Protein backbone atom coordinates (compact mmCIF):
# COMPACT_ATOMS: atom_id res chain seq x y z
CA UNK A 1 0.00 0.00 0.00
CA UNK A 2 2.83 2.36 0.91
CA UNK A 3 4.54 1.58 -2.37
CA UNK A 4 1.34 2.32 -4.26
CA UNK A 5 0.98 5.64 -2.48
CA UNK A 6 4.61 6.50 -3.15
CA UNK A 7 4.29 5.62 -6.83
CA UNK A 8 1.12 7.68 -7.08
CA UNK A 9 2.80 10.69 -5.46
CA UNK A 10 5.75 10.50 -7.83
CA UNK A 11 3.47 9.98 -10.81
CA UNK A 12 1.48 13.11 -9.92
CA UNK A 13 4.44 15.21 -8.81
CA UNK A 14 6.81 14.71 -11.73
CA UNK A 15 4.48 15.98 -14.47
CA UNK A 16 3.73 19.01 -12.29
CA UNK A 17 7.40 19.86 -11.99
CA UNK A 18 8.05 19.25 -15.66
CA UNK A 19 5.21 21.58 -16.63
CA UNK A 20 6.30 24.41 -14.31
CA UNK A 21 7.30 27.71 -15.80
CA UNK A 22 11.06 28.15 -15.92
CA UNK A 23 13.41 30.98 -16.76
CA UNK A 24 16.97 30.41 -17.79
CA UNK A 25 19.95 31.94 -19.55
CA UNK A 26 20.72 30.27 -22.88
CA UNK A 27 23.69 30.85 -25.13
CA UNK A 28 23.57 32.19 -28.62
CA UNK A 29 26.36 29.98 -29.80
CA UNK A 30 24.54 26.86 -28.65
CA UNK A 31 20.84 27.55 -29.01
CA UNK A 32 18.81 25.63 -26.46
CA UNK A 33 21.84 24.86 -24.34
CA UNK A 34 22.66 26.27 -20.98
CA UNK A 35 26.37 25.45 -20.85
CA UNK A 36 28.91 27.31 -22.91
CA UNK A 37 32.61 28.05 -23.01
CA UNK A 38 33.05 31.45 -24.66
CA UNK A 39 35.88 31.91 -27.11
CA UNK A 40 35.70 35.70 -27.13
CA UNK A 41 35.66 38.13 -24.25
CA UNK A 42 32.34 39.63 -25.33
CA UNK A 43 29.49 37.25 -25.99
CA UNK A 44 25.71 37.18 -25.94
CA UNK A 45 23.24 35.18 -23.93
CA UNK A 46 19.47 35.09 -23.98
CA UNK A 47 16.97 35.01 -21.16
CA UNK A 48 14.05 32.76 -22.04
CA UNK A 49 10.90 31.77 -20.25
CA UNK A 50 9.81 28.23 -21.01
CA UNK A 51 6.41 26.57 -20.77
CA UNK A 52 4.79 29.76 -19.51
CA UNK A 53 1.28 28.66 -20.53
CA UNK A 54 0.13 32.23 -20.01
CA UNK A 55 0.14 35.50 -21.90
CA UNK A 56 3.03 36.92 -19.92
CA UNK A 57 2.93 40.64 -19.17
CA UNK A 58 5.82 41.14 -16.73
CA UNK A 59 8.60 39.40 -14.84
CA UNK A 60 10.77 40.28 -11.87
CA UNK A 61 14.06 38.50 -11.14
CA UNK A 62 17.78 38.97 -10.81
CA UNK A 63 20.91 37.19 -12.07
CA UNK A 64 23.30 35.75 -9.54
CA UNK A 65 26.88 34.74 -10.13
CA UNK A 66 27.71 32.93 -6.89
CA UNK A 67 31.37 32.45 -7.82
CA UNK A 68 31.69 36.16 -8.56
CA UNK A 69 29.36 38.10 -6.25
CA UNK A 70 30.97 41.47 -6.98
CA UNK A 71 30.98 40.84 -10.77
CA UNK A 72 34.71 41.39 -11.07
CA UNK A 73 35.24 38.40 -13.34
CA UNK A 74 32.32 39.03 -15.68
CA UNK A 75 30.53 42.26 -16.49
CA UNK A 76 27.12 42.89 -17.96
CA UNK A 77 27.89 45.23 -20.85
CA UNK A 78 24.35 45.68 -22.11
CA UNK A 79 20.79 44.39 -22.28
CA UNK A 80 18.59 44.36 -25.37
CA UNK A 81 14.90 43.55 -25.46
CA UNK A 82 12.33 42.18 -27.89
CA UNK A 83 10.14 44.71 -29.69
CA UNK A 84 7.19 44.24 -27.33
CA UNK A 85 9.13 45.26 -24.23
CA UNK A 86 7.15 48.14 -22.75
CA UNK A 87 8.84 49.23 -19.52
CA UNK A 88 11.87 48.00 -17.61
CA UNK A 89 13.68 49.14 -14.55
CA UNK A 90 16.65 48.03 -12.51
CA UNK A 91 19.49 45.81 -13.62
CA UNK A 92 19.87 42.03 -13.72
CA UNK A 93 22.97 42.28 -11.48
CA UNK A 94 21.45 44.83 -9.08
CA UNK A 95 21.18 43.19 -5.67
CA UNK A 96 18.83 45.83 -4.26
CA UNK A 97 16.23 46.39 -6.94
CA UNK A 98 16.80 43.49 -9.31
CA UNK A 99 15.29 43.67 -12.76
CA UNK A 100 11.67 44.17 -13.82
CA UNK A 101 10.50 43.91 -17.40
CA UNK A 102 6.98 44.37 -18.76
CA UNK A 103 5.73 43.36 -22.20
CA UNK A 104 2.89 44.76 -24.28
CA UNK A 105 1.47 43.04 -26.24
CA UNK A 106 2.04 40.15 -23.88
CA UNK A 107 4.39 37.27 -24.64
CA UNK A 108 2.50 34.31 -26.05
CA UNK A 109 3.54 31.67 -23.57
CA UNK A 110 1.59 28.97 -25.40
CA UNK A 111 3.32 29.06 -28.77
CA UNK A 112 6.13 28.32 -29.44
CA UNK A 113 6.85 27.51 -25.79
CA UNK A 114 10.09 29.45 -25.47
CA UNK A 115 9.79 33.24 -25.24
CA UNK A 116 12.77 35.56 -25.51
CA UNK A 117 12.71 38.08 -22.69
CA UNK A 118 16.09 39.80 -22.97
CA UNK A 119 19.46 39.47 -24.64
CA UNK A 120 22.52 40.11 -22.52
CA UNK A 121 25.96 41.11 -23.68
CA UNK A 122 28.50 39.81 -21.18
CA UNK A 123 32.14 40.82 -21.10
CA UNK A 124 35.02 39.06 -19.41
CA UNK A 125 37.79 41.56 -18.73
CA UNK A 126 41.47 40.71 -18.91
CA UNK A 127 44.50 40.91 -21.22
CA UNK A 128 43.66 40.19 -24.86
CA UNK A 129 45.99 37.20 -24.98
CA UNK A 130 44.28 35.59 -21.99
CA UNK A 131 41.56 33.00 -22.57
CA UNK A 132 38.06 34.23 -21.66
CA UNK A 133 37.72 31.27 -19.31
CA UNK A 134 40.94 32.00 -17.47
CA UNK A 135 40.20 31.68 -13.78
CA UNK A 136 36.61 30.58 -14.38
CA UNK A 137 35.60 26.92 -14.32
CA UNK A 138 32.00 25.75 -14.23
CA UNK A 139 30.96 29.34 -13.62
CA UNK A 140 27.24 29.39 -12.71
CA UNK A 141 24.74 32.04 -13.75
CA UNK A 142 21.58 31.66 -11.71
CA UNK A 143 18.17 33.17 -12.45
CA UNK A 144 17.09 34.08 -8.94
CA UNK A 145 14.39 35.87 -6.98
CA UNK A 146 14.05 39.61 -7.27
CA UNK A 147 15.78 41.08 -4.19
CA UNK A 148 13.09 43.71 -3.63
CA UNK A 149 10.11 41.37 -3.54
CA UNK A 150 12.01 38.21 -2.62
CA UNK A 151 10.17 36.39 -5.37
CA UNK A 152 10.87 35.10 -8.85
CA UNK A 153 7.61 35.51 -10.68
CA UNK A 154 5.70 36.83 -13.63
CA UNK A 155 2.24 38.21 -14.31
CA UNK A 156 -0.27 37.21 -16.97
CA UNK A 157 -2.95 38.89 -19.04
CA UNK A 158 -5.63 40.10 -18.49
CA UNK A 159 -5.68 40.68 -14.73
CA UNK A 160 -1.88 40.70 -14.27
CA UNK A 161 -2.11 38.17 -11.50
CA UNK A 162 1.30 36.80 -10.47
CA UNK A 163 2.53 33.27 -11.09
CA UNK A 164 5.70 31.62 -9.76
CA UNK A 165 8.69 30.83 -11.97
CA UNK A 166 11.50 28.37 -11.38
CA UNK A 167 14.92 29.84 -12.04
CA UNK A 168 17.48 27.72 -13.82
CA UNK A 169 21.28 27.67 -13.59
CA UNK A 170 23.53 28.02 -16.62
CA UNK A 171 27.22 27.21 -16.73
CA UNK A 172 30.03 29.10 -18.36
CA UNK A 173 33.50 27.71 -18.98
CA UNK A 174 32.65 24.03 -18.76
CA UNK A 175 35.22 22.16 -16.72
CA UNK A 176 36.73 19.06 -18.35
CA UNK A 177 37.67 15.87 -16.55
CA UNK A 178 41.27 14.89 -17.47
CA UNK A 179 41.61 11.45 -19.07
CA UNK A 180 44.48 9.45 -20.54
CA UNK A 181 44.33 6.61 -23.01
CA UNK A 182 44.74 3.06 -21.73
CA UNK A 183 44.29 -0.43 -23.14
CA UNK A 184 41.41 -2.67 -22.11
CA UNK A 185 43.82 -5.31 -20.81
CA UNK A 186 45.46 -2.81 -18.50
CA UNK A 187 42.06 -1.85 -17.09
CA UNK A 188 41.09 -5.48 -16.55
CA UNK A 189 44.32 -6.12 -14.74
CA UNK A 190 43.35 -3.51 -12.14
CA UNK A 191 40.56 -5.78 -11.00
CA UNK A 192 42.43 -9.05 -10.69
Amino acid at each position, binding site marked *: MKKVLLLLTVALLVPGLLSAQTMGVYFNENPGQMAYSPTTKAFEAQLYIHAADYYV*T*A*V*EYMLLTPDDPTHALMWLAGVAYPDNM*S*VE*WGDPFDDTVGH*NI*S*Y*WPPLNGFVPGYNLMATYTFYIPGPPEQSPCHGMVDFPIVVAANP*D*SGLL*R*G*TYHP*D*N*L*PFPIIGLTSILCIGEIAVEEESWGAIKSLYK
Partner: protein
Amino acid sequence: MFKGKVLLFSLLLVFATSVYAGDVDECQSEAGVSICCMQISCCPAGDFQNIWEEGGYIWVEVKDALGVGIPGIPWTDFWLDACVPKPDSIEVGDIPPYMLCLCPGAIVADSLTNASGRTTISGRLALGGCVLTGGIYIAVQGKILEVYPECLDYICLDLILKSPDRNADCYVGVSDLVYLADSYNEGVGDPDYDQCVDWNHDGIVNISDFAFLGAHYTHGCF
Protein backbone atom coordinates in the same frame (compact mmCIF):
# COMPACT_ATOMS: atom_id res chain seq x y z
CA MET B 1 -38.13 70.97 -54.02
CA PHE B 2 -40.36 68.57 -52.13
CA LYS B 3 -37.36 66.63 -50.83
CA GLY B 4 -35.79 69.86 -49.64
CA LYS B 5 -38.93 70.74 -47.69
CA VAL B 6 -39.00 67.28 -46.10
CA LEU B 7 -35.36 67.63 -45.08
CA LEU B 8 -35.93 71.09 -43.64
CA PHE B 9 -38.95 69.88 -41.70
CA SER B 10 -36.96 66.94 -40.30
CA LEU B 11 -34.19 69.25 -39.17
CA LEU B 12 -36.68 71.54 -37.53
CA LEU B 13 -38.18 68.58 -35.65
CA VAL B 14 -34.77 67.53 -34.34
CA PHE B 15 -33.92 71.00 -33.11
CA ALA B 16 -37.38 71.52 -31.71
CA THR B 17 -37.04 68.34 -29.68
CA SER B 18 -33.83 69.54 -28.09
CA VAL B 19 -35.21 72.97 -27.41
CA TYR B 20 -38.45 71.54 -26.04
CA ALA B 21 -36.40 69.29 -23.73
CA GLY B 22 -36.08 72.17 -21.30
CA ASP B 23 -33.07 73.71 -19.61
CA VAL B 24 -31.09 71.55 -17.25
CA ASP B 25 -31.53 72.72 -13.67
CA GLU B 26 -28.43 71.89 -11.65
CA CYS B 27 -30.30 71.94 -8.35
CA GLN B 28 -33.28 69.80 -9.32
CA SER B 29 -31.13 67.27 -11.16
CA GLU B 30 -29.61 64.40 -9.22
CA ALA B 31 -26.71 61.97 -9.48
CA GLY B 32 -25.38 59.07 -7.47
CA VAL B 33 -23.55 55.77 -7.53
CA SER B 34 -25.27 52.39 -7.40
CA ILE B 35 -22.86 50.93 -4.85
CA CYS B 36 -20.50 52.46 -2.40
CA CYS B 37 -16.80 52.86 -2.57
CA MET B 38 -16.00 51.91 -6.15
CA GLN B 39 -12.37 52.23 -7.20
CA ILE B 40 -11.93 52.76 -10.92
CA SER B 41 -8.63 52.67 -12.78
CA CYS B 42 -8.58 54.91 -15.85
CA CYS B 43 -6.21 55.78 -18.66
CA PRO B 44 -6.02 58.95 -20.79
CA ALA B 45 -6.56 56.69 -23.79
CA GLY B 46 -9.83 55.45 -22.29
CA ASP B 47 -8.75 51.81 -22.43
CA PHE B 48 -8.53 50.77 -18.82
CA GLN B 49 -11.23 49.57 -16.45
CA ASN B 50 -14.97 49.80 -17.06
CA ILE B 51 -17.03 51.15 -14.16
CA TRP B 52 -19.31 48.10 -14.45
CA GLU B 53 -16.37 45.84 -13.69
CA GLU B 54 -16.62 47.12 -10.11
CA GLY B 55 -20.19 45.91 -10.06
CA GLY B 56 -21.81 49.32 -10.19
CA TYR B 57 -22.51 52.44 -12.20
CA ILE B 58 -23.09 56.16 -11.95
CA TRP B 59 -26.70 57.27 -12.40
CA VAL B 60 -27.88 60.74 -13.37
CA GLU B 61 -31.41 62.15 -13.45
CA VAL B 62 -31.54 65.33 -15.45
CA LYS B 63 -34.44 67.62 -14.58
CA ASP B 64 -35.63 71.10 -15.37
CA ALA B 65 -36.51 73.89 -12.93
CA LEU B 66 -39.90 72.30 -12.29
CA GLY B 67 -38.35 68.97 -11.38
CA VAL B 68 -39.53 67.31 -14.58
CA GLY B 69 -37.19 64.80 -16.19
CA ILE B 70 -35.61 65.86 -19.47
CA PRO B 71 -35.48 63.08 -22.05
CA GLY B 72 -33.10 62.91 -24.96
CA ILE B 73 -30.01 64.49 -23.40
CA PRO B 74 -27.16 63.20 -25.61
CA TRP B 75 -24.71 60.79 -24.04
CA THR B 76 -21.87 63.21 -24.80
CA ASP B 77 -23.31 66.10 -22.79
CA PHE B 78 -21.82 64.95 -19.50
CA TRP B 79 -18.63 65.95 -17.75
CA LEU B 80 -16.87 65.26 -14.44
CA ASP B 81 -14.02 66.52 -12.31
CA ALA B 82 -12.66 66.27 -8.79
CA CYS B 83 -14.77 68.01 -6.17
CA VAL B 84 -11.70 69.27 -4.30
CA PRO B 85 -10.44 72.39 -6.07
CA LYS B 86 -7.01 72.21 -7.63
CA PRO B 87 -4.36 74.19 -5.77
CA ASP B 88 -3.13 77.39 -7.38
CA SER B 89 0.41 76.13 -7.52
CA ILE B 90 1.98 72.72 -7.21
CA GLU B 91 5.55 71.93 -6.27
CA VAL B 92 7.37 69.74 -8.75
CA GLY B 93 6.76 66.12 -7.85
CA ASP B 94 4.07 66.95 -5.34
CA ILE B 95 0.93 65.91 -7.14
CA PRO B 96 -1.90 65.73 -4.62
CA PRO B 97 -4.25 62.78 -4.75
CA TYR B 98 -7.24 64.82 -5.91
CA MET B 99 -6.26 66.03 -9.34
CA LEU B 100 -7.49 64.83 -12.65
CA CYS B 101 -6.44 65.44 -16.23
CA LEU B 102 -9.48 65.03 -18.45
CA CYS B 103 -9.24 64.04 -22.09
CA PRO B 104 -11.81 64.91 -24.77
CA GLY B 105 -14.77 62.61 -24.34
CA ALA B 106 -13.59 61.74 -20.84
CA ILE B 107 -17.03 60.55 -19.85
CA VAL B 108 -19.81 59.20 -22.02
CA ALA B 109 -23.24 58.10 -20.79
CA ASP B 110 -24.57 54.68 -21.72
CA SER B 111 -27.56 56.14 -23.55
CA LEU B 112 -29.75 59.19 -24.08
CA THR B 113 -31.70 60.16 -20.99
CA ASN B 114 -35.04 58.37 -20.86
CA ALA B 115 -38.50 59.83 -20.28
CA SER B 116 -37.61 60.41 -16.61
CA GLY B 117 -34.38 62.14 -17.54
CA ARG B 118 -32.37 59.19 -16.27
CA THR B 119 -29.28 57.63 -17.72
CA THR B 120 -26.30 55.68 -16.42
CA ILE B 121 -22.54 55.82 -16.88
CA SER B 122 -20.80 52.46 -16.63
CA GLY B 123 -18.10 52.43 -19.26
CA ARG B 124 -14.49 53.60 -19.32
CA LEU B 125 -13.29 57.08 -18.39
CA ALA B 126 -10.58 58.79 -20.39
CA LEU B 127 -8.53 60.65 -17.85
CA GLY B 128 -5.36 60.73 -15.81
CA GLY B 129 -4.54 61.65 -12.25
CA CYS B 130 -5.96 60.42 -8.98
CA VAL B 131 -8.88 61.21 -6.70
CA LEU B 132 -8.84 59.38 -3.37
CA THR B 133 -10.88 61.75 -1.26
CA GLY B 134 -13.53 64.35 -1.82
CA GLY B 135 -15.28 62.54 -4.64
CA ILE B 136 -16.11 63.72 -8.13
CA TYR B 137 -18.87 65.96 -9.47
CA ILE B 138 -21.01 65.46 -12.56
CA ALA B 139 -21.92 68.27 -14.94
CA VAL B 140 -24.65 68.14 -17.57
CA GLN B 141 -24.52 70.56 -20.45
CA GLY B 142 -22.01 72.63 -18.53
CA LYS B 143 -23.99 72.77 -15.29
CA ILE B 144 -22.50 71.13 -12.22
CA LEU B 145 -25.14 69.25 -10.27
CA GLU B 146 -25.76 70.58 -6.75
CA VAL B 147 -27.19 69.20 -3.55
CA TYR B 148 -30.92 69.90 -3.23
CA PRO B 149 -32.50 72.01 -1.71
CA GLU B 150 -29.74 74.34 -0.51
CA CYS B 151 -28.03 74.30 -3.90
CA LEU B 152 -24.79 75.52 -2.39
CA ASP B 153 -22.55 72.48 -2.71
CA TYR B 154 -21.77 70.16 -5.56
CA ILE B 155 -23.05 66.60 -5.50
CA CYS B 156 -19.79 64.74 -4.84
CA LEU B 157 -19.99 61.09 -5.80
CA ASP B 158 -18.21 58.59 -3.59
CA LEU B 159 -15.74 57.32 -6.18
CA ILE B 160 -12.00 56.69 -6.15
CA LEU B 161 -10.33 57.26 -9.49
CA LYS B 162 -6.77 56.24 -10.29
CA SER B 163 -4.66 56.17 -13.39
CA PRO B 164 -1.20 55.07 -14.57
CA ASP B 165 -0.97 58.76 -15.45
CA ARG B 166 -0.21 59.45 -11.82
CA ASN B 167 0.97 63.05 -12.29
CA ALA B 168 -2.17 64.06 -14.19
CA ASP B 169 -0.49 65.34 -17.35
CA CYS B 170 -2.65 63.19 -19.63
CA TYR B 171 0.32 61.03 -20.59
CA VAL B 172 1.67 57.81 -19.11
CA GLY B 173 5.42 58.18 -19.13
CA VAL B 174 8.61 57.98 -17.15
CA SER B 175 7.38 60.58 -14.64
CA ASP B 176 4.62 58.19 -13.63
CA LEU B 177 7.07 55.30 -13.42
CA VAL B 178 8.87 57.20 -10.67
CA TYR B 179 5.75 57.24 -8.50
CA LEU B 180 5.35 53.49 -8.95
CA ALA B 181 9.00 52.88 -8.11
CA ASP B 182 8.73 54.97 -4.92
CA SER B 183 5.86 52.84 -3.71
CA TYR B 184 7.00 49.48 -5.03
CA ASN B 185 6.44 46.48 -2.75
CA GLU B 186 4.72 48.70 -0.21
CA GLY B 187 1.31 47.81 1.12
CA VAL B 188 -1.51 49.36 3.11
CA GLY B 189 -0.06 50.70 6.33
CA ASP B 190 3.45 51.16 4.95
CA PRO B 191 4.63 54.79 4.97
CA ASP B 192 5.46 54.86 1.27
CA TYR B 193 2.32 53.09 0.07
CA ASP B 194 0.62 55.24 -2.57
CA GLN B 195 -2.92 54.07 -3.19
CA CYS B 196 -2.92 56.05 -6.42
CA VAL B 197 -0.55 53.54 -8.03
CA ASP B 198 -2.33 50.45 -6.71
CA TRP B 199 -4.27 49.99 -9.92
CA ASN B 200 -5.69 46.55 -9.13
CA HIS B 201 -6.88 47.75 -5.70
CA ASP B 202 -5.37 44.80 -3.83
CA GLY B 203 -3.69 46.80 -1.10
CA ILE B 204 -0.13 46.32 -2.32
CA VAL B 205 1.93 47.95 -5.05
CA ASN B 206 3.77 45.14 -6.79
CA ILE B 207 4.54 43.47 -10.09
CA SER B 208 0.85 43.36 -11.02
CA ASP B 209 0.68 47.16 -10.94
CA PHE B 210 4.00 47.30 -12.81
CA ALA B 211 2.43 45.18 -15.53
CA PHE B 212 -0.57 47.54 -15.74
CA LEU B 213 1.78 50.49 -16.18
CA GLY B 214 3.56 48.59 -18.92
CA ALA B 215 0.28 47.92 -20.71
CA HIS B 216 -0.59 51.65 -20.72
CA TYR B 217 2.87 53.11 -21.16
CA THR B 218 3.05 56.04 -23.59
CA HIS B 219 -0.76 56.27 -23.66
CA GLY B 220 -2.22 59.73 -23.94
CA CYS B 221 -5.48 61.32 -24.97
CA PHE B 222 -6.83 60.33 -28.36
